[in-house]
């Protein structure tokens, strides 16, 4: 999570106090990511150390201390905004693992496993969607966060649908030989070389 940069963005609007930053962070992110005061001051301390923010006075952290962004902080914020997050290597996804395992453990009905996960995901999506009926109607930040969460969960359910269909097809043609690595310069191993994150 990019709390430091979010705080920098809040400071870019003008000098602010620690408690104020915490409140504005939570309100500005749809109140979905709670942040405690300790985290705020720790992060501000790091921003100060790196010269991205500065405070008036040398006293201890507390409600009297006001922070402002430095020119270097502004540069860092602008650069961060335009730097894509690292999505190159596939994460070692737990759900993907479970389905891979379900497909090969004897006596396991992979479709049943998939259905259990699909049901859980859709229930979670129903819960998020209820925010759209209420709170998210008047809270743009929350609406954006809810959308992001729904698209993420939706992508997982779609992957489950695809997995379900693939497994069904594979079961219908069981005599197909195990895949043999294709000869010649097929660029498939490219992905492998990237390695998995985490």
């Amino acid at each position: 999570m990019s709390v430091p940069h979010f705080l920098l963005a809040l400071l870019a609007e003008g000098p602010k106090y620690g408690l104020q930053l915490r409140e504005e962070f939570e309100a500005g992110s749809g109140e979905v990511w709670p942040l405690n005061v300790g985290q705020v001051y720790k992060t501000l301390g790091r921003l100060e150390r790196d010269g991205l923010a500065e405070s008036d006075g040398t006293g201890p952290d507390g409600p009297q201390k006001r922070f402002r962004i430095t020119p270097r902080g502004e540069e860092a914020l602008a650069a961060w905004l335009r730097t894509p997050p690292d999505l190159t290597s596939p994460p070692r996804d737990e759900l993907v693992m479970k389905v891979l395992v379900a497909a090969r453990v004897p006596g396991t009905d992979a479709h049943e496993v998939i259905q259990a996960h699909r049901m859980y995901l859709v229930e979670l999506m129903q819960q998020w969607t209820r925010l759209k009926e209420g709170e998210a109607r008047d809270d743009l930040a929350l609406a954006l966060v809810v959308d992001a969460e729904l698209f993420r969960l939706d992508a997982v359910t779609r992957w489950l649908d695809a997995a379900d269909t693939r497994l069904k097809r594979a079961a219908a043609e069981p005599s197909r030989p195990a895949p043999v690595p294709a000869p010649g310069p097929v660029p498939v191993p490219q992905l492998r070389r990237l390695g998995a994150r985490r």
Partner: protein
Amino acid sequence: MSRPGLGGEGASAAVSVLELRGVSKTYGQEPATVHALAGVDLSVRAGELVAVMGPSGSGKSTLLTIAGSLEEPTSGDVLVCGMALAGMPRGRKARLRRRVIGYVFQDFNLLPGLTAVENAALPLELDGVAVPKARAAGLAALEALGVADRAGRFPDQLSGGERQRVAIARAVVGDRRLLLADEPSGALDSVNADEVMRLLHEACARGVAAVVVTHDAQLAAWADRVVFLRDGRVSGQTTRPPGPESLLTPGKIR
């Protein structure tokens, strides 16, 4: 569970608006028969929005056409507002279709030669309601969907989102109790699709029962209950989930 404010509301909640009991549908002759539906039970109460999800060929569209009395089941019973469709005289069934059931299709199906209000009023006019009265009801339905100011426009003068609102107005015009929708957001983008689901949801809050068939989990997530179909059978269904408060409780997420 129905939504707040409608729970246990007298007679309307007591009777299911739609009830399928052991509904099966088989196409073709032995040995090449296809079992589109196999023993499906489904009950939808007034005020309830139910989504039916499933892959292509899972039987979800068949379920909808049977629920809408457009097709007959091979076996099993279909009851609309407590009335069994089996053995119902053709005329009565047609009347039920025109008065009680509203349909929303993927591609909106508005008649291009009619204005928005004429489209919305069409089911009533077909049912023999006098034109001024039907138009007034059509306008009221457009009003409820926020497109009353488009009443005089033809479908090709409307945006995609407006066309779909008119289609929903036509589906709920008059005193319709059951709304059946097949991929109701069509080719709309996700924000407009959201709006369609919000409107169906609001129609349910006014007491309509709705069944939405979709393969889109984001649409289905608007429902009170999601029923999963696989190979013509119900493979599971969600219950109404707890409120979203838990999602926002500090410390709950990450």
